[in-house]
């Protein structure tokens, strides 16, 4: 079992934890956190898969893609947080309306 495989599996775990948080938590800030955890997991998995060959030079293409992804994730986070604050100032709530609940 190599270190790279360990990190790829940790990436899988992060994807799972993030998806769970995204579905279960109702506070929008927590959903933004969960979305960021998912993206970190995907980056780890992608970079892990790119280093399957033992001892070789790391593949620069997935590295560049992950770099791009990190920047896009930050931009998306900023937009999501701004939308959450706009929702809060418009309705006073920090979670989305849930039509399945009776509360």
């Amino acid at each position, binding site marked *: 079992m*190599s*270190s790279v495989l*360990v*990190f*790829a*599996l*940790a990436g*899988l*775990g*992060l*994807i*799972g*934890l993030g*998806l*769970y948080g995204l*579905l*279960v*938590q*109702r*506070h929008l*800030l*927590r959903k933004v*956190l969960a979305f*960021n*955890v998912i993206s*970190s997991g995907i980056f*780890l*998995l992608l*970079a892990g898969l790119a*280093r*399957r*060959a033992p001892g*070789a*030079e*790391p*593949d*620069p*293409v*997935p*590295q*560049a*893609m*992950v*770099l*791009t992804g990190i*920047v896009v*994730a*930050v931009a*998306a986070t*900023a*937009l999501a*947080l*701004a*939308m959450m*604050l*706009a929702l809060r100032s418009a309705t006073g709530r*920090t*979670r989305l309306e849930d039509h399945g*609940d009776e*509360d």
Partner: protein
Amino acid sequence: MSLLPLAIDLVLALTLLWLAWRALNSPDLFRAVVLFIALGLVLGLVWVRLDAVDIALAEIALGAGVTGALLLAALAKLQPAASQTDELQTAELQTAELQTDQAAVMAPIALRLFIALLLLAFLAGLGFAVWQLWVPAPGLSNLVEARLDESGVAYPVTAVLLNFRGYDTLLELAVLLLALIGVWSLSTAPHLGDEEPEPALAALSRLLAPLMILVAAYLVWVGAYAPGGAFQAGSVLGAAGVLLRLSGWRLSLSATGWPLRLVLVLGVAVFAFIGLAVIGFDQPLLGYPPGWAKPAILAIELAATLSIGAILAALFIGGRP
């Protein structure tokens, strides 16, 4: 001997998962955000272990730094300062909020179990797919290696970002700009009082800001042959902007109009202009003419660094000036 690195990596991986679990499930939002920032820092270490120094730099500056600052700023706006409202009222509000939180903070337990089971099945499938894929494959390293001499830079990651996969980077700059347009159309920048920053913060920012600008300049230059480049440099510049903003410095009113907007679009504009201009020299879109790759990449990187730094700082300020 070879067991020790594996043990360290196992500990790092378990720390990652533990921090993620705590960040997503801690009842206190502030604690959740702080744990999330810690997750970003540990992730930076993991990237170093994976020999991806570029990603480590970006992760720590952006994933932990700028995202953390964004989250903390949003949290501060969500929770109005307790000292400014009547204390009794605040306490009442907090209890009311706590009660609704207890009832509605999560989905019901049966639903949660169902979701967890579904996700476990999904993860098992994904894990199996990863296991099946786990045969050594050369990937694209050899291809990049073979064409590196033509790329204008000596560092493969920068070559991929600004030459071989220029489209990605151009569109990424556009995405950053779009996010800022979205944020600006949602709100105007909060009016800040004229309060003096704390003396320690003011002194520290006077020391740190010039250093950070220097580090950014170094990173953008060194990106041609070592880990570094426009995105890392831009994030350091953005962090300097956040620090300056926190210590009370702001742009003069005359500079927040078109000069600010010019800096914000400079990266996309220069990249798109060079990408289109090369068509006149019988090159495909975004294909640099032979011998011109180095100056073209340098110009794009300098413009992109300025724009990325300005956009990140503007995203943190959060609102149209």
